[in-house]
């Protein structure tokens, strides 16, 4: 194992305050952004379900385009919103954690909406008519569909969180990567690598890798957990 890697492990084990502050800030920003994006994504998915035929197809294409927008572009758009001359300039959020949460939320909303919309469409095919016959109005029907496929909701949360924690574009642009204030794992890795401080970059990289691994493991375990709790169809 290289010396840098050993030093990185040492940093992690020693509980270096600066390191763990960066990790904590990353988790906080991405968790909050995921929660906000999930709520707004679910509401948008409900609205999208109201449209039918060609209009829904067009909106879905626009949504998928939004999903594919580079993170740094979302960061730029958020920067323009929050800059002094921007419509939300008076909030004074630029180069703060709030700006980073806002930017990541805007980044994650289309992903959350797409995943929830897909969940609703699939569940509606099997459960929709029964719920309609029982008298469920559209939004009530969507809520019951979400309840039916609540494990897929977890999948959405995990996926959004994974996207958020691993991105650098938005948080770098609107946060400014200020030490002790807006620095998160991904921006710190970018900075430390350019500085040549590899142990720090590696330590953060290890944590990020471990997080991504845990998230993917959770996603892989979800079907097993769902079947265990609710019983698979025979």
């Amino acid at each position, binding site marked *: 194992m290289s010396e840098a890697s050993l030093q990185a492990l040492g940093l992690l084990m020693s509980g270096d305050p600066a390191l763990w502050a960066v990790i904590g800030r990353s988790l906080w920003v991405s968790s909050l952004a995921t929660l906000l994006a999930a709520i707004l994504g679910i509401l948008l998915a409900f609205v999208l379900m109201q449209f039918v035929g060609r209009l829904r197809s067009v909106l879905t294409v626009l949504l998928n385009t939004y999903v594919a927008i580079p993170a740094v572009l979302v960061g730029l758009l958020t920067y323009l919103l929050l800059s002094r001359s921007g419509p939300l300039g008076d909030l004074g959020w630029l180069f703060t954690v709030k700006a980073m949460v806002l930017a990541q939320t805007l980044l994650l909303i289309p992903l959350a909406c797409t995943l929830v919309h897909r969940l609703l469409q699939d569940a509606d095919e099997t*459960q929709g*008519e*029964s719920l*309609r016959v*029982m*008298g469920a109005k559209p939004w009530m029907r969507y809520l019951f569909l979400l309840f*039916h496929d609540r494990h897929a909701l977890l999948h959405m949360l995990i996926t959004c969180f994974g996207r958020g924690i691993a991105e650098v574009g938005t948080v770098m642009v609107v946060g400014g990567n200020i030490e002790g204030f807006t620095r998160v794992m991904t921006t710190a890795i970018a900075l430390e690598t350019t500085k040549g401080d590899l142990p720090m970059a590696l330590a953060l990289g290890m944590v990020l890798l471990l997080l991504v691994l845990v998230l993917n493991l959770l996603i892989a375990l979800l079907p097993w957990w*769902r079947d265990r709790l*609710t*019983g698979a169809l025979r």
Partner: protein
Amino acid sequence: MKAMQHTHPVRDRANMIKLSNLEFVRDGKLWLRVPQFSCGPGERVALMGPSGSGKTSLLRAMLGLLLPTRGELELKQQATMLFQKPALLRCSVLNNLRIAAFLAGLSRREGIRQAMIWLERLHIDELAYQQAYRLSGGQQQRVAFARAMLKPSAIVLLDEPGANLDRQAQDRLEACLDRQYSVVFSSHDHQQVKRWADRVYQVDEGIVLERTL
């Protein structure tokens, strides 16, 4: 096309369901025609025909789930339906029924009470707290029936009600549907139709016609 009409409880002997000159067109092709169809109060009407002939589509049209291209469709009262595939939600049997009771406007207590009554009638009350997805096909079908019956309806539509049920379970289901209900059911089971139906419609080569039992 005259839209589905729901009126106040019927005091005369008018048909509960009446279809006139209904036509279904798909991809420019007429695939099902219903010159005349009716079901009176307390009547049991069977729909017979090969798989894919349109029996399920006709039942769905009666509920407004499928719109015919032209024709008149009239339902005098609220209807409920048992689908061929149970489509239960991923939760316990009792919660599946409680959701139906909630949507029917029943209070929490009354919903649970009525749910248990229906489960007892169908001899599946011991399954109340089991996960619906763990049940056998026949058990799920009976749960789905209990769920459908929680909606206050004078008209009951059944899509292949005997498909997953043994004879005993079928008898219990039929026993639940006394003459206060008007029933339309699709079936391949000639014995069941002979035993239970008052009248029969045959779906044959895209046309629905009444035939003698």
